């Protein structure tokens, strides 16, 4: 296949960015999208140009590093991560736009690479259970009903890629934050910190400059791991409960 790529180029965080046009040829439908970019980069290096910087690591859809907006969609046309998107989803002669995540809380580092450390700080604010090493009781001391364990797992699947933020017209991080709140709050082990967790994580989320949620649902549509939109509703419920209890004290 022969393709035309229009790629966002930006030298560094402070520089102005622009879309640059490149041609690539000999692309096989079996290549992943990132392997297609590898081909472009090999060309660029040999012609003495700066290759396109992009984040990627495991290339099997689990580390959450890859993060491209392709033709306007976070992770492109299929419901998967960019690394698991294959060129068979495109046609010979196509023109493809490739941009970084666009969100106020994710500043561009270079080209297609953005800074997602805001996510780490949301987790640091309360996305954990306090259980110092060595303090754990026997694992079977507290049975967890299977539906609760399954609910926790479904939310724990979040890979922290940030597609939800990139897809959201408001640049909100509600789906990411709710996934962690729901994972931990439903478990008996997470109960002692249930209220502080949701209050602190939501407060940190606001502080990082993520937008507000208007329930447009773009986040859940873009999520490669299928975290459901109702996750946000569950977190809102947790937050209201925690706020009410705090007011009573």
């Amino acid at each position, binding site marked *: 296949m022969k393709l035309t790529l229009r790629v966002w180029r930006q*030298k*560094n965080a402070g520089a102005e960015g622009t879309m640059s046009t490149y041609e690539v040829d000999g692309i*096989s439908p*079996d*290549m992943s999208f*990132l*392997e297609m970019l*590898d*081909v472009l980069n*090999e060309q660029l*290096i*040999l012609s003495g140009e*700066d*290759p396109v*910087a992009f984040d990627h*690591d495991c*290339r*099997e859809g*689990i*580390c*959450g*590093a890859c993060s491209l907006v392709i033709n306007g969609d976070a992770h492109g046309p299929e419901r*998967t991560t960019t690394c*698991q998107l*294959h060129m*068979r989803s495109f046609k010979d002669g196509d023109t493809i736009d490739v941009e970084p995540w666009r969100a106020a809380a994710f500043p561009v580092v*270079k080209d297609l*690479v953005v800074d*997602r*450390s805001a*996510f*780490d700080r949301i*987790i*640091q604010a309360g996305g*954990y*259970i*306090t*259980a*110092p*090493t*060595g*303090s*754990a*009781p*026997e*694992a*079977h001391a507290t*049975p967890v*009903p*299977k539906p609760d*364990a399954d609910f*926790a*797992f479904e939310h724990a*699947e979040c*890979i*922290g890629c940030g597609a939800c933020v990139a897809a959201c017209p408001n640049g909100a991080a509600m789906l990411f934050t709710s996934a962690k709140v729901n*994972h931990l709050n439903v*478990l008996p*082990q*997470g109960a002692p910190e249930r209220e502080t967790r949701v209050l602190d994580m939501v407060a940190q989320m606001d502080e990082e400059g993520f937008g507000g949620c208007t329930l447009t649902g773009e986040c859940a549509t873009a999520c490669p791991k299928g975290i459901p939109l109702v996750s946000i509703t569950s977190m809102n419920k947790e937050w209201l409960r925690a706020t009410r209890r705090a007011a009573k004290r």
Partner: protein
Amino acid sequence: MTSYADYTTGEPVADTKAPAGPINERWDKRRFEAKLVNPANRRKQTVIVVGTGLAGGSAGATLAEQGYRVVQFCYQDSPRRAHSIAAQGGINAAKNYRNDGDSVHRLFYDTVKGGDFRSRESNVHRLAQISVEIIDQCVAQGVPFAREYGGLLDTRSFGGVQVSRTFYARGQTGQQLLLGAYQALSRQIAAGNVEMHPRTEMLDLIVVDGRARGIVARDLITGKIDTYFADAVVLASGGYGNVFYLSTNAMNSNATAVWRAHRRGAYFANPCFTQIHPTCIPRTGDHQSKLTLMSESLRNDGRIWVPKAKGDTRPPNQIPEDERDYYLERIYPSFGNLVPRDIASRAAKNVCDEGRGVGPGGQGVYLDFADAIKRMGRGKVEERYGNLFDMYERITAENPYEVPMRIYPAVHYTMGGLWVDYDLQTTIPGLFAVGEANFSDHGANRLGASALMQGLADGYFVLPATINDYLARHPHKDEVGADHPVVQEVLAETEDRLNLLLAVDGDRTPDSFHRELGELLWEFCGMARTDSGLRKALERIPQIREEFWRRIKVPGTGEEFNQSLEKANRIVDYLELAELMCLDALHRSESCGGHFREESQTPDGEAARKDDEFGYAAAWEFTGTGEAPTLHKEDLVFEYVHPTQRSYA
């Protein structure tokens, strides 16, 4: 000039830290004998941890909980992305929840035997003991393991063992365990006990007066190279499988931290012990950048075959039953498709070498579920393997319910690594190695679901206990300053290396060299190795190295985000490590575990160990680039599990 292959044999190396006495009392005894650091003094001591996978994440969090000041590094943009996250299958623990006869001793026994008698008994026994605490710890952190309807933890059997001791979280066990460790680490970062440096890559080790005192690291965003100082350094930087270019490792996983430590004096043990996993999705062409593993549980119900005739290009559905060769069932009638990883991998290579491989380039064999679907119905197959079938279809665009899957072996894990004693300390005092970065627990072959167990055992429980002893004996007295002559020298060497890479301005990309080296290693130091092949590789590697420094092209500068420079610098180390792997494979003229020497096989074509000659771990000492290294042998003594030859026929 002597050739690289003319290595010399130096003094034996011995583990002096494991106490004598009954094996089940050794860990308790060591913990009691180890000196402790007063809680008030811990604040004054700094520990550097490189890597944030299962071993590094859990070690950083635990050391910080104990009160040490931790300075931690990862090359990823977040500690949550370390490649432990990609482990699928599960984690072993001798809980015996199934009441099926499991015990600490049985897990110990299985691991020593599975490692083909090339691991250290004391270490493996401790691993089995600690396995039960890991599950408790992870559950307390909120790791959502699979559960039964009664609310208790579910387990499954894995990798051919006869007990059900593998705990799992669907096909994402590594992800869930890693997020548990990451969250514990995040709590310590928020508390100010861990100073976290993401997107910062270790480029060298600082050794002052014979002790590890810090590292040189590069900020990958600004390109700034800086020095960091500590009272001890812990490497949790993972394995070196990416030396093969194509592997199931993450793209940026690399060997620089361990190799630089090796160059500074840490012995490197058993580098030729690499694990090749039989069930990966085959490559589709030269553009292939990495390989994806599929859980080997598929072999429980799938049947592996190739056409009987060479060069048969008919679609699989048109090849009649009597023209198919179910070669594993034919050669190993009693174990069939369930033979261990190394045997299944080698058999696939053999049939492909005969010209009977399928798919692009003939590098694949069929894994067929037609019989399973007939026997159990499609619904049941979907229930068991649905997510794997989906993954396969996403990558290959073929529907495995209708067309047999194609699989081929791929490099997956490295059992070799930095030599460590029972305290996980390398031969450089103050330098520790945990997880896949060390060599200690898996011998010549790792069992399924044991990597996660070892990473977390090292990080949560072993290192935090043993490092106390070292830190107590070396209380914090002096700061090594950036102006120390040794520090200046290491820093200058690093800067020179990067500047040289940028200055060559040749006509070949970093990837082109990496691919060339990888193909060479795969051919001669892959699934089957020979004396002549390894000698060929040893002749070729210095030539590639020479060409690399003449023709490498790295665009841009060092003072910016430069992924080509990162890559090229890692290849510099691969080009040396590859040579040591080939030499180690050449010198070990026996077959054991993942290391198969064609010259050493039984009459029926199985691996033949030579315990009298090679019952040791080979710890190599660096003497200079391209210079013949020195071999130090650690004799392995088996008091509890007596070596036997494996048989699966």
